[in-house]
């Protein structure tokens, strides 16, 4: 059984400091939902509101339609996987996994049987009698998941569970987590500051900054159609140009970015507040959207100079300069993209690949 | 208070919270605060036979404190004897404290910075072991050591340093040596803990920049270890000035320690209010002295640890 969660105007304030600013969202049962944001933006605080360690100062947390105010963490149908895992160091692996059953008064034999089943599920069969300290990082990770599953929760909350692992293992665990979620069919709420994790695993993502939810959507929407400057600059690589809106007919905008001919950019329906002629704006173009112009007079064409190149095998990451602004450019290494370092190079991009947004805070690199 | 209890219950549950609150309040009120207040109250009363306590004669008075300052005479002469004993006690305690600091600092430093692993643990154990031995016995050992036919006198006379036994007891040498011995551990451990957490690189950096060993200690180690020094000195000073066993065993017959006065008013003197007043005087003077010194060295009580 899975339950839907809704946050209704949730605020969390620590004295003067606002850690969560009017969070408003619904998470469907069985969904893999991620909160993505830089460290310190209030993700953990929000998760603690759901798990019951933190009461919102204002607003409501509802699980399965029921208001959770005053319901302690031990009475909520959630299980939390802590950032540091919080495995009990003095208990064996099996005793860790069986802890939720132990406190519910389940007898020893049943506990052990259930722990063994869960060890099977996380691919650590027969390791129940080991000490926690004898496990590797990835194994600890899986034990923490098994322990949370032993609670038989409706919702599993995961607070940056992979951040302590090395890169290889992290990538492996992504797939594994997603597989476990599919298998058990629970709602997963996943916190991370790593966009790669969020994009690969999630059904939907909420991007947060300074306590505010900036955008909610699936990975594609967030990457292709960010609605704020923060999201555009935080998720994936992006080039940003300062510009002024010349005209906006609802479908296409003309934008002057000081690079010769004004640019033509499509106006996406979910693109945030509409921009009117005369407004200042940020124009975002992703490195992979920029291309070497094949012929003169193409749309959105401008002149640049070569700065440096970083060679990655299949990809070439090139930095070009356009009238004082550095631009990143990613090209596939297919032998067709020769650049002469000593002569100006013309670049262009398709109108649907440029995104004009109201100027706002940019994520620091 | 209600908020505090609510918070504890939320974290620990009802049963555990009640235990916590009960245990702490029992300790703070029944064992610490109320007895001290009762003693304070008692020190402002006359020494009455039990039957008259609570009667019309049982009124507040400054008599016991007046006695400490002026003695039995109704005249306004000073009670030089008791005041003198207080001063002598404090002075001796300061002396013992400083002596302990001087002898313990090098040990703590060597222990903290040059010993590692099993060797350090063994040295620490060797420091602790003598302190599992009864305080009385430690004083007794010094009595033997410094007696007229004790090892010190025998050795001194054997080497021809002096030719008649020196009465170390009457000279209070035995007492100071015994007191300094008694609280060494309480000086070493705060020092050791403080110095141990000092990054070795800081010392090496100072050396590198041309500081000699004296400057390294004066400019780097000692300022860093200040909280440790303060808590060690506070402990040793308070315990020395409040010591009773060592002065009783090692003190010369005519040289009293201030705690012995308190003891006398209580036991042989049978005057509890006066004993209380003397105890209050000791307590207040000691605390005032410690706070004053802490203020001078800019450290807070919260930094005191064992």
């Amino acid at each position: 059984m899975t339950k839907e969660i809704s946050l209704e105007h949730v605020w969390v304030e620590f004295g003067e400091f606002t850690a969560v600013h009017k969070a408003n969202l619904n998470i469907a049962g069985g969904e893999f939902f991620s909160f993505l944001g830089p460290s310190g933006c209030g993700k953990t605080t929000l998760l603690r509101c759901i798990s019951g360690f933190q009461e919102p100062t204002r607003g409501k947390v509802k699980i399965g339609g029921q208001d959770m105010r005053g319901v302690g963490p031990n009475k909520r149908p959630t299980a939390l996987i802590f950032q540091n895992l919080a495995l009990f160091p003095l208990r064996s692996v099996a005793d860790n996994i069986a802890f939720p059953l132990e406190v519910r008064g389940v007898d020893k034999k049943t506990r052990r049987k259930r722990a063994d089943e869960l060890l099977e599920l996380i691919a650590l069969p027969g390791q129940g009698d080991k000490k926690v300290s004898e496990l590797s990082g990835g194994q600890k990770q899986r034990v923490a998941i098994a322990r949370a599953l032993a609670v038989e929760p409706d919702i599993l909350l995961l607070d940056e569970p992979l951040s302590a692992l090395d890169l290889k293992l992290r990538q492996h665990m992504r797939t594994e987590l997603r597989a476990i979620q599919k298998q058990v069919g629970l709602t997963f709420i996943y916190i991370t500051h790593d966009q790669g994790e969020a994009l690969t695993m999630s059904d939907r993502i909420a991007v947060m900054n300074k306590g505010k939810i900036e955008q909610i959507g699936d990975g594609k929407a967030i990457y292709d159609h960010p609605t704020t400057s923060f999201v555009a600059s935080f998720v994936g690589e992006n080039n940003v140009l300062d510009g002024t809106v010349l005209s906006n007919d609802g479908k296409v905008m003309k934008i002057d970015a000081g690079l010769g001919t004004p640019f033509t950019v499509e106006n996406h329906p979910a693109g945030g507040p509409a921009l009117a002629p005369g407004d200042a704006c940020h124009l975002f173009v992703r490195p992979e959207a920029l291309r070497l112009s094949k012929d003169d007079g193409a749309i959105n064409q401008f002149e640049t100079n070569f700065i440096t190149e970083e060679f990655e095998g299949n990809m070439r990451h090139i930095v070009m300069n356009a009238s004082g602004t550095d631009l990143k450019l990613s090209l596939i290494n297919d032998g067709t993209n020769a650049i002469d370092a000593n002569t100006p190079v013309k670049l262009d991009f398709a109108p649907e690949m440029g995104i004009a947004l109201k100027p706002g805070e940019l994520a620091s690199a | 208070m209600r908020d505090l209890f609510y918070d504890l219950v939320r974290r620990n549950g009802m049963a555990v919270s009640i235990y916590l609150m009960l245990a702490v309040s029992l300790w703070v009120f029944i064992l610490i605060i109320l007895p001290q207040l009762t003693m304070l109250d008692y020190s402002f009363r006359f020494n009455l036979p039990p039957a008259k306590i609570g009667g019309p004669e049982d009124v507040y008075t400054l008599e016991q404190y007046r006695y400490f300052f002026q003695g039995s005479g109704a005249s306004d002469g000073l009670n030089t004897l008791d005041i003198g004993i207080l001063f002598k006690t404090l002075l001796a305690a300061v002396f013992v404290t400083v002596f302990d600091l001087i002898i313990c600092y090098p040990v703590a430093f060597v222990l903290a910075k040059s010993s590692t692993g099993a060797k350090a643990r063994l040295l620490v154990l060797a420091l602790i072991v003598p302190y599992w031995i009864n305080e009385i016995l430690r004083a007794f050992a010094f009595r033997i050591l410094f007696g007229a036919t004790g090892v010190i006198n025998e050795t001194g006379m054997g080497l021809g340093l002096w030719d008649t036994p020196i009465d170390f007891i009457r000279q209070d040498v035995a007492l100071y040596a015994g007191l300094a011995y008694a609280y060494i551990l309480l000086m070493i451990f705060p020092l050791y803990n403080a110095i141990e957490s000092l990054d070795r690189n800081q010392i090496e950096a100072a050396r590198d920049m041309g500081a000699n060993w004296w400057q390294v200690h004066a400019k780097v180690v000692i300022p860093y270890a200040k909280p440790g020094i303060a808590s060690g000195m506070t402990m040793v000073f308070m315990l020395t000035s409040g010591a009773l066993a060592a002065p009783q065993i090692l003190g010369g017959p005519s040289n009293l320690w201030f705690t012995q006065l308190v003891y006398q008013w209580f036991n042989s003197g049978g005057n509890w209010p006066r004993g209380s007043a003397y105890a209050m005087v000791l307590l207040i003077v000691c605390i005032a002295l410690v706070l004053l010194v802490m203020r001078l060295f800019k450290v807070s009580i919260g930094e005191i640890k064992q």
Partner: protein
Amino acid sequence: MRMKSPTALIPGLYLTLFFAYLFGPLIIMVITAFNSSTFPRVSPWECFTTDWFGKLASDDKLLSGLGNSLLIGVGVVCVAIPIGLAAAITLSQVGPKLRAALYTIFIAPILVPGVVIGLSTLIFWDRIGTLFNAPYESFFYDGTFLTIFGQVTFIAAYSMLVFLSRIQRFDTTLTEAALDMGATPTQAFVKVLLPFMAPAIGSATVLAFLASLENYNTTVFTIVSSSTFTTVLSSKVRYGLDPSISAVAVIIIAITLIGAIIYECRNRYYTKGWAHVIAERPALKIATHPGTVAVILGVLTLAAVLFIQNHDSSVCTAQVLEEKRALQQQLMEQQSINTPQQAVPAPTMPNLGPLGGDEGGASAPSPFGNNIFSPENLGTSAREGN
């Protein structure tokens, strides 16, 4: 090989001197326990004897004091440990301001002179007793109860410090994890926090028990008409030095050393490196097991006890006594010859010292001559010599 520079030797030399200061007095005291001289001393050496231990075994006062001390120690542990634990947990859970205030109150009993604590405890319970019109046999006036209360006042603070240093390393997310897993707050306390604190509870118990056993300053007030091991010892020391006190020290030092050795063996045995060494060598594993060490020490102790019970130094002491008698005879003769001169020849004094009783200490500043020449005194020491 390179010579160490002389300055590099200074720390070692200093440490040696320091530990000599630390252990010297104790070693000398231990030696005096085996000298048959009735005054605790190293020289002149009379006879090796174990009789002072025998004298202890028949010292009813000391034994009953010891009984009281053990009872009080158990009482103190039972009260002080829960209080210290509660105080440490409370400190770890309150905000920084309240924490600082509470810490100052909690730490105060360590700094307040023991005399003051003893006094205030005595007065406080006396007042309460009077308030309830309690009879004199009630616990308000009972030395054992008062001493437990008085000692707990500051021993709870010691144990709090032990708990505090452990609880600072506690990861509070463990408690949160337990709650999240459905444990009630009480279950989280019992199943997560308490097991984590268990080692500290062990060491705090030992510390509290020892602190209680050795306390004097507070106890001497609160014990009223009863007595403890320490107060009996103190009055023994004050009313006459006697090598049987050294014998007490020997026993305590032996117990301490045995404890320390077993503790250290245990530590070494459970280190990772050693586990590696003994993994393949069962004989070594058994030989270095702390249990084995304890058994060996136990056997040695038993042997020592048997030796003490059976050692007979009466022949030697009788001989020494005879020599003294002869010397005394000689002196008396000299005295009768040299009349009317003073009889006490200073240079021979140290040799006669053994029977000198107290040495001009606080309690009985006796002129040398008197009891040296008293026949009763000789008689007593002869009897004790058996």
